[in-house]
């Protein structure tokens, strides 16, 4: 992931949904979408966290201009 983003841990992109954020990321750093998604869905091993909350809506999760979006390994819980 870091190599895809040129070593940067935080990048700023626009988008109203997680899908748009990923699309814009992919435009700037080719390969992002393939790392995170399969068949227009987040891979089951990837979780998206928007403003500190793990979203259960995946690609459809809405984000705002100031939102912080994180991609994390999905947790197995108990």
């Amino acid at each position, binding site marked *: *992931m870091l190599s895809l983003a040129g070593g940067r*841990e935080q990048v700023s992109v626009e988008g109203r949904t997680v899908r748009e954020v990923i699309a814009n990321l992919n435009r700037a750093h080719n390969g992002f979408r393939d*790392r*995170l998604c399969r068949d227009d869905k987040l*891979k*089951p*091993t*990837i979780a998206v*966290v928007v403003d*500190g*909350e*793990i*979203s*259960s809506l995946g690609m459809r999760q809405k984000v705002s201009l100031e939102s*912080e979006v*994180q991609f*994390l*390994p*999905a*947790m*197995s*819980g*108990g």
Partner: protein
Amino acid sequence: MSNASKNGNGNGKYKVIGTRPIRHDGVDKVTGRAAYGIDTHLGGMLYGQILRSPHPYARIRGIDTSKAKALKGVRAVITAADLPPSEADEVLNLVEGSFRLKDLRSNILADEKVFYQGHSVAAVAATNLHIAEEALQLIEVDYEILPHVDDVVAAMRDDAPLLHEDLTTKEFGEDTGKNSNIASHIQFKLGDLEKGFAESDIIVEEEFETASVHQGYIESHNATAEWKTDGQLTVWTSTQGAFGVQKQTAAILGLPVSKVRVVPMEIGGGFGGKIPVYLAPQAAILSKKCGHPVKIVMTRADVFRSTGPTPSSYVKVKLGADNSGKLLAAQATIAFAAGAFPGSPVGAGAVCVLSCYAIPNGLVDGYDVVLNRPRSAAYRAPGSTQVNLAVETLMDEIAVKLGMDPIELRLLNAAEEGTRRVDGAVYPVVGCRETLEQTKVHEHYLAPLSGPHQGRGVATGFWMNAGLKSTVTANVNEDGTVNLMEGSTDIGGSRASIAMQFAEVLGLPAEAVNPMVGDTASVGYTELTGGSRVTFATGWAAYEAAQEVKKILIGKAALYWETTEDEVRFEEGDFVHSTDPEKRLTFKELAGHLVDLGGPVVGTGAVDPNSGVGGSFTTCIADVEVDPETGKIKILRFTMIQDAGTAIHPSYVEGQMQGGSVQGIGWALNEEYFYNEGRMQNASFLDYRIPTCLDVPMIETVIVEVPHPDHPFGVRGVGEASIAPPPAAIANAIYDAVGIRLHELPMRPDRVLAACLAKEEAEAATANG
């Protein structure tokens, strides 16, 4: 501390919440009438048994079931050939993780290889249990024994025997293509690690190992299945989640979920271990083959050998702090033994390892490793206890080196609102600091120790808690009571805590609500009972259902008074006419009129709250006495201080804290999977030593209440965090008592003694030198 309260009074603002009513299912459970999975009995029922591998790793060259089939009383014998074929990359997504269907099926009935001692190979149904047992001995399996690996560090080496030819290491969505027992590698990074360590005045670093431990629930795994000729399958079982069993069973059998109905029976303990499916698919196929319901109950030895222990672990942690005790940098390497198939909670371990503190620079690497042991399963705060031992022992070392009080050191670094965790998440309002402040002033912490070889230790722990989908349906009865149908199996009093949240909204006594757990055909989708989520999420669904009931009843009251809804208010549990104060109906009175007021009153709550990163923090104090001649540890006094958000039923909150504490004590002192040549040697409650009531004192509790900012009643969930810190607290207490540091769980008497003797020798050498 401004909005924190103590000991479960719910901040004094509730009527039902914070009280201690008798649980609704209590009488059935103290009279022996409650029906657990093992109690299932159906007409014409046959008994199933599972043949299991005696070898840790072997290729199956052939299975001959003919002699077993010929035994009088045997009705069916099945093997992996009776399961649907698997595509290589078919995946089943569950909230507890994503699993290759191929692996799930292999765990149910091994096809090409057995991956661990106890791996299911064949199953038999017969007219009684003893005949089924005899039949197992008549099944001939031709094994080609393979070299095995059962240690997590050894399994990671390049020259280790490989378990799965098609398994390659995954790194955050990328397949490295490298064939290995390392199923995945995850990494979290925050700040500038090198700079953080360079600026540190004090650096501590140690390696730790923990043994596999079992959840140890007293009821064995069980499943009874009936496959009717119309193709409809019903499964009665003890499970933490009926819908999860439905999904897993349907996927393994290649059925649509609608063909599988799962009836959750009362469940005799789970702690994470009754999330996976172990027996339902075999019982189902056997039932299909013989046209009768089939019941399978595991023996205790099979429970140990074949079902989810928590992973054994290797954890290395390095902490850097300045001279004031402020943490500046932290690095952790974590390897978890997933067992035969990928899927350990190493991700959770990687989140939890540095979760209690504000640390600006951090790096965490986690490895999920397969080896020849049973597929691991969740166990109470999965992954947190293993990593807690490492960090909390090192925190104690820093406190000793700096001459600081260990609670002051933790307070100086405590995570709080706005703290960014190493995985990037930022905490909302959390109660870490509040548990530490309560610890500092607790009578236990201030009391003197009373004799030689006694010591006191503290540790702080964390679990993230889950949200997830839950459904509750409320039906109002004409006598003013409410039937509440919910989907969360009740493993420790959750019927009461859900009913109480419902009752709170409507001003009802807890006893007026009759909570029931529905099966997959009678209640809306509800995720598992786990992740400390039931009181939080299903309680939230109950709150929403109550809101809907209230809204409908306001309409009914308006209809009754022949006015409009905006003329009716709900106050103090009564429906009141806004302009005519004479008109006032209690809930019960209004319910009594419902027969003439149109359609039935049904409220539904269906929620999917985000997990958030609130979580629950806990701190514990342990006093121990060490017998320096034998190394035996006695727990003299033990106190657990935990943030519950809001305690709905304080007795059951205390119960969770006490139960988690004692499981943590067992993990610390005596519990372990003892392996020899890949075979578990101690697969019984005799030699797998869970604590008895003579091993522990009363467990004191302090419930801290820092309400969850989003939950309607501020609930956080309290089921899990309490298991994490006891091993470290006990390790620190042992250090305080006799000056030795143990880096391996369990801290068995022989290890304690060896460390005591080594210390004496070292001191003698120093004195002589």
